[in-house]
């Protein structure tokens, strides 16, 4: 079974803090993704990575950065947390291949509250 784990289920941070969200997958997947989930908006892609040290902006990258130093680990960084970044953050991974690369496996999510 593919397993995607996220470092925290719940996180509370203060405005202006630097926040790190960690994601680890154990299936040697090339692709990894960070999404933000908000009610009524579905999932919106923040960043994704298709290889170690390779990254590409998604639809809402402002205020976020990412790091992928090892294949199994993909980190999302909030440089200076703001209250409008309070949300559920979901990490996903996928393999390569014409179709398999589109089958994403998700972690349980981190609910981040910024006060």
């Amino acid at each position, binding site marked *: 079974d593919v397993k*995607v784990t996220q470092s925290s289920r719940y996180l509370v941070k203060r405005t202006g803090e630097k926040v790190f969200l960690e994601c680890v997958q154990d299936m040697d997947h090339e*692709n990894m993704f960070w*999404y933000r989930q908000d009610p*009524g*908006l*579905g*999932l*919106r*892609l923040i960043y*994704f*990575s*298709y290889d170690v040290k390779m990254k*590409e902006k*998604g639809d809402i990258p402002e205020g976020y950065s990412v790091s992928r130093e090892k294949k199994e680990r993909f980190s999302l960084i909030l440089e200076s947390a703001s209250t409008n970044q309070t949300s559920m953050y*979901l990490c*996903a991974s*996928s393999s390569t291949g014409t*179709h398999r*690369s*589109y*089958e*994403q*496996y*998700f*972690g*349980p*999510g981190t609910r981040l509250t910024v006060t």
Partner: protein
Amino acid sequence: AQSVTQPDIHITVSEGASLELRCNYSYGATPYLFWYVQSPGQGLQLLLKYFSGDTLVQGIKGFEAEFKRSQSSFNLRKPSVHWSDAAEYFCAVGPSPYSSASKIIFGSGTRLSIRP
């Protein structure tokens, strides 16, 4: 641009009743289509997928979906729902023609409640 619309925000059905969740997409070519389910407190799980071929697709947990090109739809169905089907359901479409990676676009979700 690609987009996915799930017109129903919340649906309630009785246990044992049939279910249909609607999904409409906008895409310039033949899309890849997906349904994911998110149970309370959990991440998303892939229910079923369509890439090509037979337009009626079978998935896990007794779900099926039908791709109708003329209606730009990919509705999810189940003949008889169980209380454990209460969850949020997301339709998604890909691929993105503007990216080097395998991006998909998600709809806003439909929350399913089951009436005992």
